[in-house]
């Protein structure tokens, strides 16, 4: 046990921060917030799954994916298909031309449930699919691209195009996917009303517990040899390759892992929000997920979760008061983070106790007069 503990946390402060945060989410917030607000926090936390994936993928391994929404969407759609089938029993859908199929299929003159919907009548299969479908698809895409050494800006643009294709594909097949409206009006999970207050509390706790399990898993990866290899790939790809590592495989694995985390997030999103729609899988939400991660700290697991909470909280509260100013603030914050605090909030928090010297070093980096184009990111400090 102490060994595992030491693998997970490098310092006592880190463990304390982790515990404190868990306490906040599990005890303080549920006591302080009405269930409606708590449900919102739960929704924000589902983006935390994506953000943790991005910490591994982007912060650690240097691969920027602008298509994480696709995997969030795949997980979410798997869950939504199950819930929709449950909500479409022949009794409640008796007024349809074909009772027993989802309403949007009926509106599109589909008279029989498509074959690939059938397995989603089973909960175990659905859970299996939530984990496996995003991971397998990501692995195939990643393997195809990383083997051919696609990286950097190219990878970002290709994943962004995939996000566009995915959302267009959903839009264009509304008889099978619900189209732009998405899959709405989800009510029960195996007969349990997911919209009730009780259920929302339980789902919130489920979300927090799963998120922290995943966070610990990610920290474990970061602190094993795999974590060090990821950083090494980011900074010195060729050296890693010529130390006998299969760089493409490792990248594809981490991409698939991040996708799986996104898929879990998507499924929990659907459970807590009650619907799924292509508007959460396209280009803009995919970039927003990167923003959450960047603001919180691309190197820090805890920071990324914090980023999701803070940006979304800001969005909700600030956009209630000044909807026009919100986009200025968001754009400005993002530019500032990228330019001056590449390690985000987590990086700032770590800096506080240290002497002035580090600040000087931080700013010195931006005063370099001769810009140098390289394809690598400069090694950003690597403490977590």
């Amino acid at each position, binding site marked *: 046990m102490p060994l595992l503990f030491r693998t997970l946390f490098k310092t006592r402060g880190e463990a304390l921060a982790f515990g404190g945060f868990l306490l906040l989410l599990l005890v303080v917030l549920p006591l302080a917030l009405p269930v*409606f607000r708590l449900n919102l926090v739960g929704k924000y936390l589902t983006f935390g799954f994506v953000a943790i994936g991005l910490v591994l993928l982007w912060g650690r391994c240097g691969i920027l994916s602008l298509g994480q929404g696709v995997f969030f969407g795949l997980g979410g759609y798997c869950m939504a298909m199950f819930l929709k089938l449950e909500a479409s029993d022949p009794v409640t859908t008796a007024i349809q031309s074909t009772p027993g199929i989802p309403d949007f299929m009926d509106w599109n003159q589909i008279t029989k449930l498509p074959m690939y919907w059938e397995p989603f009548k089973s909960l175990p299969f659905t859970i299996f699919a939530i984990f496996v479908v995003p991971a397998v698809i990501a692995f195939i895409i990643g393997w195809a691209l990383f083997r051919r050494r696609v990286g950097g800006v190219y990878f970002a643009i290709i994943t962004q195009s995939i996000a566009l294709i995915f959302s*267009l594909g959903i839009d264009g097949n509304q008889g099978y996917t619900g189209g732009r*409206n998405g899959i709405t009006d989800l009510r029960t999970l195996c007969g349990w009303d997911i919209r009730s207050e009780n259920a929302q509390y339980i789902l919130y706790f489920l979300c927090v517990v799963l998120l922290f399990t995943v966070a610990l898993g990610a920290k474990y990866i970061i602190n094993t040899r795999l974590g060090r290899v990821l950083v090494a790939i980011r900074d010195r790809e060729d050296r890693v390759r010529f130390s006998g590592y299969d760089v493409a495989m490792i990248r594809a694995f981490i991409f698939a892992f991040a996708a799986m985390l996104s898929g879990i997030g998507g499924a929990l999103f659907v459970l807590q929000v009650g619907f799924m*729609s292509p*508007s959460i899988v396209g280009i803009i939400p995919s970039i927003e997920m990167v923003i959450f991660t960047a603001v919180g700290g691309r190197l820090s697991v805890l920071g990324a979760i914090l980023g999701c909470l803070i940006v979304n909280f800001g969005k909700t509260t600030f*956009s209630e008061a000044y909807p026009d100013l919100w986009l200025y603030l968001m754009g400005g914050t993002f530019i500032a983070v990228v330019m001056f605090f590449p390690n985000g909030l987590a990086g700032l928090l770590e800096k506080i106790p240290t002497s002035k010297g580090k600040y000087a070093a931080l700013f010195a980096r931006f005063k370099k007069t001769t810009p140098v184009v390289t394809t690598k990111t400069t090694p950003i400090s690597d403490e977590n």
Partner: protein
Amino acid sequence: MKLKSLSHHFLKVAALALATATATAQDKLPTAQVNTTGLAVTDDTVTVGQLHSATGTMAISETGSIQAEQLAIDQINAAGGVLGRQIKVIKEDGASDWPTFAEKAKKLLVSDKVGTVFGCWTSASRKAVLPVFEKENGMLYYPTFYEGLEQSKNVIYTGQEATQQIIAGLDWIAKEKKAKTFYLIGSDYIWPRTSMKIARKHIENVLKGTVVGEEFYALGSTSFGSLINKIKLKKPDVIYAAVVGGSNVSFYKQLAAAGINASKQTLLTISVTEDEVLGIGGENLAGFYSAMKYFQSLDNPNNVEFVKAFKAKYGKDSVIGDVTQAGYLGPWLWKAAVEKAKSFDIDKIVEASPGLELTTAPEGYVKLHPNHHLWSKLRIGQWQKDGQAKVLYESELIEPDPFPKGYQ
């Protein structure tokens, strides 16, 4: 400035309010009596919510509804409010993002306890908030013409459902233009798809015509060259279009540039209002037809007043489209229902709603059907270069039928 230009209208409104018997300061009903379910109603105010996209891609379309609803609320307040209470508005921004709509709807109903919500524009946003309204038992006044296939206790649809907008329009064009062949074009989402489905059934089964092409383009598509060539090849009598958003502009500009104009081709659209014409440019549309229940150019006293008030508030260059007018009806219909029910309770409003009539509507007389949609007329307008429509045809009042038999 508003007061002066609107005074005439206010007098009429005030008279109407008096006539409907309750809303003066003297005989105000006690709050405990008009509000038994804990809504945000005090002795002097009632809080309502407004939920539209002020930012994001849909802000283009929803701005008009936001303005019209605000105008109606201002006018109601100036005339003494609802049951003697001034309306306070909480504005929420759905930011063109459906989960945000759901989130904000929940906030309005659960945290703010608003008496009603005016809002949503796209079908997708309505579908996202619908379960919230049903679960929390809120009230939504939804202004957009839409695909039908829906009826909820908690929603009043002040725009037309698909059959109201489509069937009379197709009948007219088939008769006027002796049209037999139709090319159907829409943006790729539920409203155009459902509309085209109804249109196709009507063309094939009733008009005995043929559909020579039916295509849907992703929202935001900007290149229509290939489509236009296909149209040229098929030479339909009528192009029947439901293209929305930014694609609209590209579609009509490219159509005009390819030499397809009103002198050679009949085009009927169900998605172009005065709002869209601003972006497309009147010269690109001149001579084409729109089927709507309302045009800014309607010549009746209600509308003249309305247009004057709207321009006084939002500037002389502002325009009013179909949805904007439908948005304007929302607060008035809610006020009428509340005053008929003598209560802000949602269940009592729902009970009072069927059969409500509004004689002051800019579009003319409207009546609320038990299925929560409005009886309304359909008009065919022909677009002029100045961006206004010349109304050529006006139907009788059409019964709303959100689940049309034989069209599904």
